[in-house]
């Protein structure tokens, strides 16, 4: 049976453990042999995106050490997975790094493409707004982007359609960036916040009770704005929805 190594992004580990717990529980429910290597830390993206890719070798080494043994690596984060897929290199261990890059999956794509989940036993009777995180969408092709002239598809929606009672709202701008962007959120604070506010506004205008997505970073940013606006709307990671009973 395939062995899956669970990679939990650093900020999910520290601030949104529920997303990690839901991911773990969901995979277990689906009969997956999943382990969380306790020596893991981070994928290195915050440093790399800030121009410090050249400092990430130790971080990358640690990642490979933790995950090389597994058949698949699964993570509830599109941006971390994309980063590993695109940028994981380890000095003197390129073969191992390549192996890791080819077997890492974001949670949604793992459920749809590998486990081929067709009937989730989940229930979440609420109006939900799905946020398409850019790295997951344009980088991992979790769903079709509006820029391309190509047929529509959406892996998250495929899964959400299996959740009883869930009502997915439409949005005015289907896939505009939320403005988190890593260190961008503080380096370009004014624009970042404006982008987040606009995204939140779109969801609220269409009646969302929950804003969900596959990347907690985007949701963290939108949650910060929702709370500042004293909104009752909550954010949740899609794993928590798919795991909801």
């Amino acid at each position, binding site marked *: 049976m395939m062995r899956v190594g669970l990679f939990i992004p650093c900020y999910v580990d520290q601030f949104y*453990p529920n997303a990690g717990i839901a991911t773990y529980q969901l995979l277990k429910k689906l009969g997956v042999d999943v382990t969380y290597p306790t020596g893991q830390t981070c994928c290195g993206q915050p440093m790399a995106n*800030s121009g410090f890719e050249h400092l990430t070798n130790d971080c990358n080494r640690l990642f490979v050490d933790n995950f090389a043994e597994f058949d698949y690596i699964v993570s509830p984060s599109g941006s971390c997975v994309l980063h590993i897929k695109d940028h994981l290199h380890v000095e003197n261990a390129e073969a191992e790094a390549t192996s890791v890059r080819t077997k890492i999956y974001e949670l949604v794509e793992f459920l749809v493409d590998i486990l081929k989940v067709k009937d989730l036993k989940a229930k979440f009777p609420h109006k939900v707004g799905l946020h398409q995180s850019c790295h997951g969408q344009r980088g991992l092709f979790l769903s079709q982007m509006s820029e391309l002239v190509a047929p529509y598809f959406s892996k998250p929606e495929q899964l959400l359609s299996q959740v009883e009672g869930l009502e997915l709202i439409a949005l005015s701008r289907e896939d505009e960036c939320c403005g988190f962007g890593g260190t961008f959120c503080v380096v370009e604070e*004014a*624009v970042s916040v404006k982008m987040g506010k606009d995204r939140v506004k779109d969801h609220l205008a269409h009646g969302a009770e929950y804003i969900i997505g596959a990347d907690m970073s985007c949701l963290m940013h939108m949650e910060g704005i929702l709370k500042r606006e004293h909104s009752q709307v909550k954010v949740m990671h899609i794993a928590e929805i798919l795991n909801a009973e």
Partner: protein
Amino acid sequence: MSETTKTHPELAEIFNKDEERVDWHDETLWWIRQKRDKSAHSIPEWELLRETASQIKNNVLSDLSNYLVQFEKNAKANGIIVHWAADAEEHNQIVHGILQVHGIQQMVKSKSMLTEECHLNEYLEKQGLDVIDSDLGERIVQLAKEPPSHIVLPCIHKKKEEIGDLFHIHLGVPAGTSDPQILTETARQHLRETFLTRKAALTGVNFAIAETGEFVVCTNEGNADMGAHLADVHIASMGIEKIIPQRKHLGVFLRLLTRSATGQPITTYSSHFKKPRAGQEMHVVIVDNGRTVQMGREDFRASLKCIRCGACMNTCPVYRRSGGHSYHNAISGPIGAILAPNLDMKKYADLPFASTLCGSCSNVCPVKIDIHQQLYKWRQVIVKEGYADTSKKVGMQMMTFTLSSPIVYRTAGKAGRWVLKHIPFAVNNHFNPWFKQRDMPEAPAESFGEWYKKNVNHK
């Protein structure tokens, strides 16, 4: 000029002080993106068209020196006088020289972002010459003494009332006029006189065909043609990368250009200039100005495929909410952010960071430039060359240290959560830029790692 010393984040912050205006700017450009989408979707073979254009441009870049030689040879055979300019200064001198030879003091110009890059207008005005921009948007920013904020829509940042005010001051329309019809008619009359009296006209070049030695200029207004066909001297300025190999390739590019730019199927005029009119002198000035250097940069070479459509700006959520002037460069937006650091890495070090790397730009680019990947790569180069600020460097060293060791990481994480929980004001204050307009996340009782340790029996 104080604007040149301010960075993108600073300028963007100023831009964002007027939220209603930001909404207006953002919605206007998003609407243009939607028009582009509609237009693209009306062509089932759109993605194939993009791929073809991309490959044609890849081929051009791979053999550019030969294509340029071919173009020069054929243009000369057509009777066009060809000049070469290594940089902006030389370009300006050449243009000035041509005008001097003919004793011309006044020139009419149609749109050319290259001449913005070279600051031609400023140069000529210093020499005592008079230059009038005939493209309506360019004329407006010229009257306002501002640079254009968008490469295709020069005054997209201006409201019609502001334009009315400008025309009231400079062109005599009654105060308070804001009807676009009236304002355009005023400009038409005012510029018609210019076209009829200027002996020299300068245009840009959208495409230069190596095979035939001709060049194409696309406008909606007809101003390039009005200028060129009435003037004794027609000067066309082009960057070396404007070459396309054969005339038939125009079929691909003309189908992509305007649809990408504004959603129109084609510009009203796509004029092919091959030979000077009898009695007229036609000049082409071919400009390098850093392009050869960019060509040598393997990671960034593809930025030279750009056909200056502006689609990347219209789609960029950051551009829409910060405005072209925040990029403090002739070419703004995503494409500007990957072209400018090549010209002056110190001055433009902020631009590749003015992005969330969302990737929308790369996917609307008609020639498939990997813009967002180049933005990421420029960040590495800028830091390596030493243009990142020290505090960032130190912060990053610390981060590397923390994230390379599980024990340090777990301790730091726990400490951070404890602080957030018990001394929130240490974090929730004005020194924390996150906190300015957003609440911090709540600190959970335990991390995932701690939960796992407690709840999962593992070997």
